[in-house]
């Protein structure tokens, strides 16, 4: 058996799906956040695979930017989560219900 583009894309799609459902299902904010990062990295994998197998660099270049963006998101996101934890002493989504009308 040979590992080709299809396999990479399958893995990337699988990772993306896992991340997506994780975001929908999980209760712990930090875990949700990890799932989001997982989705971004799934996209990176796809980009690299495509640009490796189809030739052309733009995919690989895009990955640089994606990683940077992901880092920025992590920084800001964790800051918000920490601030919220200090205020509410919890990061469980069901407990964060002040905004229901």
């Amino acid at each position, binding site marked *: *058996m*040979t*590992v080709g583009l299809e396999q990479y894309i399958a893995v990337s799609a699988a990772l993306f799906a896992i991340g997506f459902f994780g975001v929908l299902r999980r209760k712990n904010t930090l875990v949700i956040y990890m799932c989001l990062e997982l989705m971004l990295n799934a996209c990176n994998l796809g980009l690299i695979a495509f640009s490796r197998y189809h030739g052309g660099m733009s995919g690989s270049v895009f990955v*640089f930017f994606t*990683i*940077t963006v992901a*880092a*920025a998101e*992590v*920084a800001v996101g*964790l*800051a918000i989560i*920490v601030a919220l934890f200090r205020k509410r002493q919890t990061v469980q989504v069901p407990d964060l219900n002040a905004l229901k009308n």
Partner: protein
Amino acid sequence: MTVTDFVPVLIQIALAAGLAGAILTGSVLFGQRGSKNKIKNYAYECGIKSDGKTSTRFSVKFYVTAMLFILFDIEVLFLIPWVLVYRDFVANSLPILGPILFFLGVLVVGLFYELKKGALEWEK
């Protein structure tokens, strides 16, 4: 690629597992048994019951520093390709110095701001 390319990985996994298994079984086989009682099975055989969580919380400062580190660490990503093509660009008089200097300038301003705000001071 074919599966054969992955053989070294398999071998490594096998080696690691085997080594770990070997050491454990060795200690069971050749080690001398002491008397089994609860006290002896505690961590540190000093007779004092251990209390408190085994996992200790870190100060949030660690996280802040880690975030800042990531942010500035990522920028290296853009410097590596720059370094690789620098000579060719200069040789063909393509603009390359200006943009990267502007980029670094922004970074430096950020670092300056970060320092002045005391984000890196450990004791406050």
